[in-house]
């Protein structure tokens, strides 16, 4: 079994929101970023994977097991970090271990204490007295202490300072180093993913927009800038999230569209009648892709 997580045609309806036919696959040994603007369906997807919400359709397989039929076995192999603490605030760190460890057959107390030491968490402290970053690390320490094969993080970096975010990425890179374990990382702070993520799944308005390699994702878009007179109708049709200002415009464009325009153009002019050289074309960041694509709502 080379896929740690397989999501097929996952669907769920709420009043006013619909997650439609979301499918993606996460092979073992890699980090996948789950991205999209707030309210796009990231947390819904994660809660469906955890069977906290009941799916209307589709299937979720973790290590080849159905997430509902084999829920218990699945959750032994699954660790989750949410955006905020989910332990009882009145527990001390040590009591948290006592309360939770009994549920896992493979709980490794020694490892847990090593991690506490590494993260600088005082076992005698109450959970509610830990900083946000420390609470996140406590959830991570628990997550790493029973040999889970899949780690799911739901917006773990929102509200964290840059130091903690960097530490998190270090820990995640170590986690997947042996090539057996994977990470699904939902975030709207895409800078975190720019380097470390191997795959990207981008959900927008409840629909899957892209899933695949991160480099491929970033590579399939370009930022196009130019003067207003370059903005011909033909070009305009192909631009995503167009923003104009008195001195020019900027927009996102699919790399293949850009190349098509260039190819079909004659005499140094693109098919749209715009001189190809007049446009400034730059590589896009994940952030820019999300910003431009969610502006229009159409792709």
């Amino acid at each position, binding site marked *: 079994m080379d896929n740690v997580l397989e999501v097929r045609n996952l669907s769920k309806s709420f009043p006013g929101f619909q997650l439609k036919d979301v499918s993606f696959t996460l092979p073992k040994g890699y980090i996948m970023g789950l991205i999209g603007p707030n309210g796009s369906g990231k947390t819904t997807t994660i809660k469906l994977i955890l069977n906290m919400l009941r799916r209307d359709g589709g299937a979720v397989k973790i290590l080849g097991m159905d997430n509902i039929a084999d829920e218990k076995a699945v959750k032994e192999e699954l660790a989750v970090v949410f955006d905020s603490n989910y332990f009882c*605030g009145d*527990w001390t760190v040590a009591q948290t271990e006592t309360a*939770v460890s*009994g549920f896992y057959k493979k709980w490794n107390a020694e490892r847990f204490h090593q991690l506490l030491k590494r993260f600088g968490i005082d076992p005698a402290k109450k959970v509610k007295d830990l900083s946000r970053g420390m609470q996140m690390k406590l959830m991570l320490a628990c997550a790493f202490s029973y040999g889970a094969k899949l780690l799911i993080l739901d917006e773990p970096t929102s509200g964290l300072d840059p130091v903690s975010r960097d530490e998190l990425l270090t820990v995640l890179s170590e986690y997947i180093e042996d090539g057996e374990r994977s990470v699904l990382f939902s975030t709207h702070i895409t800078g975190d993913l720019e380097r470390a993520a191997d795959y990207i799944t981008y959900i927008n308005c409840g629909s899957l927009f892209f899933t695949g390699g991160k480099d491929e994702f970033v590579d399939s878009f370009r930022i196009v800038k130019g003067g207003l007179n370059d903005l011909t109708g033909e070009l305009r049709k192909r631009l995503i999230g167009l923003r104009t200002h008195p001195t020019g415009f900027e927009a996102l464009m699919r790399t293949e569209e850009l190349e098509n325009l260039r190819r079909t153009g004659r005499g140094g002019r693109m098919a749209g009648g715009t001189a190809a050289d007049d446009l400034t074309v730059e590589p896009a960041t994940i952030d820019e892709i999300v910003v431009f694509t969610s502006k229009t709502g159409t792709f």
Partner: protein
Amino acid sequence: MNETLKAARLDFFLLRPYWKTICFSIAVPLVYTSVARSLVSGISFAMCMLGIISSYTFAVSEKNGMERLYGVLPVARRHLVFGRYLLIGLMGFLALVFSLISHMAVLRALAETVEVWEIATSAVMGILGYTVYVVFQVPGYYKFGTVGGKMFQFIPVTGYLLTLLLLPRVDPDSPVLAAVLGQPALLIAAVVLLCVLAYLASVGISVRILRNKEI
């Protein structure tokens, strides 16, 4: 069963920070008993206080957003429910035993005589009262939460007030009571059967509610 025990243990840890409040709640009725000098109403009071405590596990887990922890742990939802009932039931049993002994001791110290029929009636009233409080409250909290289901918190108090109201009207010499108390084995069997059925129904409802709940 193992899963149920683990879930009960987790609930126990939820209550642990509140042990002082819980001990206080069980101790207060002792004062009442020493004033009112009635074992039956004292025990009913104690079980009412404990009935109120059965909302604590819900309140604590809601306050801490722990439904997400329940969603992560490798434990089936029905076992979470079983565990919660197990802990609540166990606490009720221990509190009843403790209260019976301590309240009798208080009354003895005050030179009151406690008759066997009083002890039996107190135990039966305590068990019945607590069962009623629990079997209605718990599914209510599962369905509406402790905030939405705030009215369920009044069940124990209402129940206790009703007990107080009705208790003086029972004629200790009535033939019906005598007949009932005259068959202690039958009485205990009936009470146990009634309580078991009530708990089973309540557990069943709670499991169904939690299973369909989206968290």
